[in-house]
């Protein structure tokens, strides 16, 4: 099914502080978008707010999936409507096996009265795990528990392959991956690309985009998309960083710096006692 995610003038806050400042983005299935930007500019927040993380508050704007606002939808409904987020730090859930989890996720999408054909699903699970070089015991291992960073990321891709979303955010899926694992993930995601899947890759580095080639590249700074373009932007960022763009747009470097965090009363400027 063709799908479109449209984000309109989205303003988002957390604990009273604005962190997304009027984002606009439109992604159709069949397209691959890359979102790049310095640390702390709201890239991961954008992915989490689209998925419905309860920590964030939408102040204004809208998010539409196939023309329907998802603002009031609970997280699970957004997922069943076709949204997916491969997380930067997947949660460990001891006691829940990978297989039970993914089976429950896939079963949640079936129409009432339909049942998952377990035998067929086991074969699909094993085949996907094999393609991602995940080992034979993955099904019985507890969800992400004791996984290396790379295994956790590959497990996110495995879930994506079996759940088959229509719009998927991959949040720094390349972090924690060595060269070989990156190649495996890149090849698997590329294999999944189709007219039925829209991808939004959040990354800091060109290396992921060597494997999964984007159609559009967006740069986020200070909670907004400040530049969109094609693949040529990636190379420029890789060589020159973001300073050229900040200079071009007149973004104050000083404002970019995060506030310093004080630890302990000494750091807060407590008066020094004699002899210390």
């Amino acid at each position, binding site marked *: 099914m063709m799908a479109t995610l449209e984000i309109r003038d989205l303003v988002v806050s957390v604990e009273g502080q604005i962190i997304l400042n009027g984002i606009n983005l439109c992604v159709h299935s069949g397209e691959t978008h890359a979102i790049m930007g310095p640390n702390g500019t709201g890239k991961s927040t954008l992915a989490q707010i689209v998925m419905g*993380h309860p920590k964030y508050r939408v102040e204004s704007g809208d998010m539409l999936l196939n023309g329907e606002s998802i603002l009031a939808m609970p997280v699970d409904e957004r997922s069943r409507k076709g949204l997916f987020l491969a997380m930067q730090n997947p949660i460990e859930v001891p006691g829940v096996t990978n297989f039970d*989890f993914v089976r429950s996720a896939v079963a949640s999408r079936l129409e009432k009265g339909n049942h998952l054909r377990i035998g067929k699903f086991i074969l699909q699970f094993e085949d996907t795990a094999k393609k991602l070089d995940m080992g034979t015991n993955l099904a019985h291992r507890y969800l992400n528990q004791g996984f290396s960073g790379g295994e956790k990321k590959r497990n996110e891709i495995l879930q994506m392959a079996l759940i088959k979303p229509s719009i998927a955010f991959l949040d720094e899926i390349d972090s924690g991956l060595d060269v070989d694992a990156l190649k495996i993930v890149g090849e698997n995601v590329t294999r999944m690309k189709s007219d039925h899947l829209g991808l939004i890759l959040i990354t800091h580095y060109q290396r992921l985009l060597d494997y999964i080639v984007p159609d559009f590249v967006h740069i986020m700074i200070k909670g907004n998309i400040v530049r969109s373009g094609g693949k040529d932007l990636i190379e420029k960022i890789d060589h020159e960083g973001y300073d050229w763009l900040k200079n071009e747009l007149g973004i104050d470097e000083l404002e970019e710096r995060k506030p310093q965090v004080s630890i302990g009363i000494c750091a807060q400027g407590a008066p020094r006692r004699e002899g210390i």
Partner: protein
Amino acid sequence: MSVPAYIHALPDMVFLSEQETIIPSGITFKDQTLHIDRPESSLIHIVLWELSGAQTLKISLSPYTSVKARLFVYYRKATNLVLDYQLGAQSSGEIFQSFIANRPCAFSLTHQGSLAEKAKLTLDSLLFFRGTSSLKENFDLIGVDASLMARTLQVAYQNDRTDRTLSVRHQAKRTFSDITNHVIATERAKVKYQVIGEIKKGMKGSSCSQINRGLLMGGVSEIESDPMLLIDEYDVSANHGASIGQINEEELFYLSSRGLSIDVATRLIVSSYLQPFLDVLQTKPLIHAISRLFNHRIQGGTS
């Protein structure tokens, strides 16, 4: 209440009730002591059926023996049970034990264990008490290199009250203990537990660790945890952690983000507390019986 079919079907079973005593070969039962002296590692089922009044059971493992045991304690009247594990030198016990009441009544458990040199005890306990229960547990690691791994899950609901004190005393060098306590409390249940890890002076190279996790599932349930380490030696490692709260928001978000409703995600997370115990049980009818009991209690049932 009649003995369920899944109990009847258990192989190699010690069955003790007021009406009947069954003791398989390789085990003797004298002076309230089950003496297990089997040359090879074997799986033994021990059922204490419909206990009431004052009861004592000692389980003794001869040196150099290795035993896997599943102990099922069923009670329906006020019961005062003393359960004593004595592990001889270099013996090894993997013991799963469950305490199950199907109606509210007072239950008092004095649980003690003594581990000789290089003895190793792995103890998985499921506590399905009803009513008011009181536990005093003392494990003494008296031999060098003795090791205790104890994992407990309690599900308390309705008006259940539990007061539990668990103490592990390292009385020899290079002794090891690893304690995990999980408590799930629903409705108006109140659970209070104190866990004490004690390393005596001179017991160098010992390691003592404990994790206590309480899950409050709505209602006005209460869990009070008091972890304590009493360390009188420098050359040791010791740590404890305790948390009490509702289901982690990040876990719920992760599971929901794959399409699972909050109800299904919650059920999956709560069931995950039980799963490691089911993995130990392995026998399907037992797994089904324990799962059914767990789910009924989590949902406020009365099974």
